[in-house]
């Protein structure tokens, strides 16, 4: 259970990084990635995955 970022559509704005409650998102080689080991899909934390809710490009999706 984890989310991923479709890098081709990502605008590298960083909105997701700021919202992730698990610090699972980081910038690697100019693109944001989600660490599947840390991602909880925000279950038990919020109504919906925060990265997907804030992403302007709608590119945070289930892995």
């Amino acid at each position, binding site marked *: 259970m984890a989310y991923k970022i479709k890098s081709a559509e990502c605008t*590298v*704005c*960083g909105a997701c990084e700021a919202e992730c409650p698990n610090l699972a998102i980081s910038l690697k080689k100019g693109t944001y990635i989600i660490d599947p080991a840390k991602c909880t899909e925000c279950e038990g934390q*919020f109504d919906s995955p*925060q990265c997907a809710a*804030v992403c*302007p490009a709608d590119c945070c999706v289930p892995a």
Partner: protein
Amino acid sequence: MGNVIKLDGILGVGELKAATDAPPASGCTSSACGSSDGPADMAPEVWEKVKNHPCYSEEAHHYFARMHVAVAPACNIQCNYCNRKYDCSNESRPGVVSEKLTPEQAVKKVLAVAQEIPQLSVIGIAGPGDSLAAGGKNSFATFEMLSKLAPDLKLCISTNGLALPDHVERLKNYNVDHVTITINMVDPEVGERIYPWIFHNHKRWTGRDAAKILHERQMLGLEMLTSAGILAKINSVMIPGINDEHLMEVNAQVKKRGAFLHNIMPLISDPAHGTHFGLTGQRGPTAQELKVLQDKCEGGAKLMRHCRQCRADAVGLLGEDRGDEFTIDRIEAMEVSTDDAVRKTYREHVESERAKRAESKEAARAEVAETVSAEVKPILVAVATKGGERINEHFGHAREFQIYEVGHAGAKFVGHRRVEQYCEGGSGDDDALSTVLAAINDCAAVFVAKIGGCPKKTLEAAGIEPVDSYAFEYIEESALTYFKAYAERVSQGLAPNGVTRDAVIRPAEPAALRA
């Protein structure tokens, strides 16, 4: 780089060192007391805050430069006129940048620009996303460093307002005394046609709920700014058929909550931008539609008419963009210092010029008020200028014309029109000339430092009088002198009383042509 403005060109030869001891201005220093208020029209502490800020004072925009640092790429709302995926250096409009900067890079860029451009007085953060989204982390990190390294530069931000109530206290602590909020509606029914969604309180909201939350946060944020003594400018995008008439209500509501200035901007819409409005064929307003709405709002919150809708990484005087000179690569290689001596000298000079300018404008205004009948309708004149309130640009080199309305009541700046440069490398381009004609078609005359014989004839045929007899003179005084003679001709039946033509608003030319 075609649009570099040398200090001498702005000030006039030898003026930088000229001693001035003119008496202080009195009475109404701006000719129309409308878009260009001066020290007599506001409290001294407010004048102190705005007098050197090109975006908050029409007068200052002739003398001072601003730069935006693009440290805030994240956003917390989606607007139908914005496409966050699109970032092309051939575009010049809000929300668009070529390079995103880290706070450290931004600070180095500011110091580099400050030592090259002594007119620099303001550092703004305007995105390319929202400056307060993602906790405002990058914006505040930038302000933290700048407030120590360049304390003479004013700091300002622009925001959609959603996160603003959470940050007013912090802005106050960094001495940010100018905040711009983009407010396009005060009614969620209108708002849902502009904002498809917002992200607030860990949730994506859509439809009317989203617009309602955004509206309430914007009003709360504005009220908090007013209480904190921070000047608020309101930007509104005029979207014909959606919020055009509604913006009068927006004007009234923001005035009630203490907004200092209201800036109504035309929607920039093109399918190539990939925005919702661009793709669905939503049009922007014409020049006269925009002006009519702005005129209807006069008497409410004061209107700003000199906005150039600049990029989130713009550098220079309004109307120019020297961003290309300060790319990350070039800045990394530059030696920068924190010495502010030249900026100081420049500001002292402008300060001494101000009183003289106010007197001279007032004298010209008084003469027209006494000698010209109020029956003569006001006219618009287009002006080719490089800044410094002078007619100092060649017709063929102008990339924009400033528009002044001049009549019995005085002369005032009412806007600008971007054009394609007519003369590139010595020969005239007829396609470009037709775009110039369309852009200033509602004007009775165009004031230039110089103009060739061919465009002169075309302008005359279109009913726009080319005037080069005021070359290098001050704009407002020249406009008033011209109007006096024009009124004379009207009374003799030699000129029409008023112009009823409309003009076309175009977005900026591609940056590629500017290099």
